[in-house]
């Protein structure tokens, strides 16, 4: 399969990328690792007239400890997240999720910003960023804004990013030494999650629980979180995993099967 024709521009800086996006209006798409966009273009699910390649913007590939936050550049690859010592110590949940994405070749090319901007409801990193209460930093023509992860995902493969904005950084509260877990179930070795769950303990004893594959967007299992906060044992709280969710019902899995999986996986993750 070959994508439909398009023009190709390689951006040399964030400013250049933003200028290209503004120039072409909604016709342009950003190309990072390409592992979500290029398959979609082959299937004609995306037919951008212009691709603005930001893959060479090395300045967007970094992991930094910044006070009590970890700043991750949007072009940081999944491979880097798996191995980075700051991620391993400060936000190990992110490494645990990155390790479960696709396969080694995909993790070599895929980027955290690309994955989040693609906003697939079953994306592993989305669960981790949601459970960590991350903040996404977007650059646009009128400046920089910060979008809390909980407000970022607006629908299946839809995000709060405007067509002329570029996601540049993900900021995560450091969680060194706090319990975490990432569980997912897939049909084949390299598949997307049918259902996945990310759990992150917080200072003060609160626990965040995020689900993927359980609705039109990655989401927080609010009922489980509230039950845990009220002192309900994890073994009981897990039964609330699908409460308020509208899991998809499709060829991959029925919604009732997904609801069952969510309970099982939340139970496993909470066993920590």
């Amino acid at each position, binding site marked *: 399969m070959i994508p439909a024709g398009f023009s190709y521009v390689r951006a040399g800086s964030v400013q250049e990328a933003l200028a290209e996006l503004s120039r072409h209006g909604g016709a342009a798409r950003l190309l990072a690792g390409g592992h979500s966009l290029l398959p979609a273009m082959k299937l004609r699910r995306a037919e951008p007239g212009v691709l603005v390649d930001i893959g060479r913007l090395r300045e967007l590939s970094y992991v930094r400890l910044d006070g009590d936050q970890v700043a991750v550049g949007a072009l940081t690859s999944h491979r880097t997240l798996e191995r980075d010592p700051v991620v391993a110590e400060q936000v190990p949940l992110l490494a645990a999720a990155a390790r479960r994405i696709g396969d080694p*070749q995909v993790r070599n090319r895929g980027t955290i910003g690309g994955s989040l901007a693609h906003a697939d409801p079953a994306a592993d990193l989305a669960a981790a960023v949601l459970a960590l209460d991350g903040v996404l930093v977007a650059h646009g023509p009128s400046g920089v804004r910060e979008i809390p992860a909980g407000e970022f995902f607006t629908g299946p493969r839809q995000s709060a990013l405007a067509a002329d904005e570029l996601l540049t950084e993900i900021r995560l509260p450091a969680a060194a030494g706090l319990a975490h877990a990432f569980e997912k179930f897939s049909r084949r070795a390299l598949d997307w999650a049918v259902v996945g769950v990310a759990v992150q303990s917080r200072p003060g004893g609160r626990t965040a629980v995020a689900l993927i594959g359980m609705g039109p967007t990655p989401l927080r299992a609010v009922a489980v979180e509230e039950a845990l906060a009220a002192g309900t044992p994890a073994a009981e709280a897990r039964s609330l995993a699908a409460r308020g969710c509208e899991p998809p019902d499709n060829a991959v899995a029925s919604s009732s099967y997904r609801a069952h999986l969510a309970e099982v996986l939340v139970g496993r993750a909470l066993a920590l």
Partner: protein
Amino acid sequence: MRVEIVRVEITVNGQPHSREVEPRLLLVHFLRDTLSLTGTHVGCDTSSCGACTVMLDGVAVKSCTVLAAQADGCSVTTVEGLGGPDGLSPVQEGFRQCHGLQCGFCTPGMVMAATALLTERPDPSEQEIRDGLKGNMCRCTGYQMIVESVQWAAANGGAR
């Protein structure tokens, strides 16, 4: 349809190549159709099966999901760059010794992924081999002899 041409300079197996290509040309087609290096296979074409795996600046990638334009200025190694009939690489020889293939379609990708694995982990455990080959599918062997082939290579020269 918008047709536009970009010039790419890509070093493949040590040989520099400069070509004008359509932006939508995939790296795998650049290798196979433009350079006639047909060792790299197109399998699923959806970045699942791994038959198209090559090294891009030393890192294993699925070349059906990389534009030739993205590889501009980069160095690519294909299965032809590892060794030929007169001098197989240890991984290639391992597949021969341990019967790591039947039809052979997945083999170039398996060999490249295994070479990438051994570059990073010269002495992998069986589980590490299986994890390292997670992005490569074989419909013939059931994988056991592929794992044995990689173990043979690890014991006989590694990623060389």
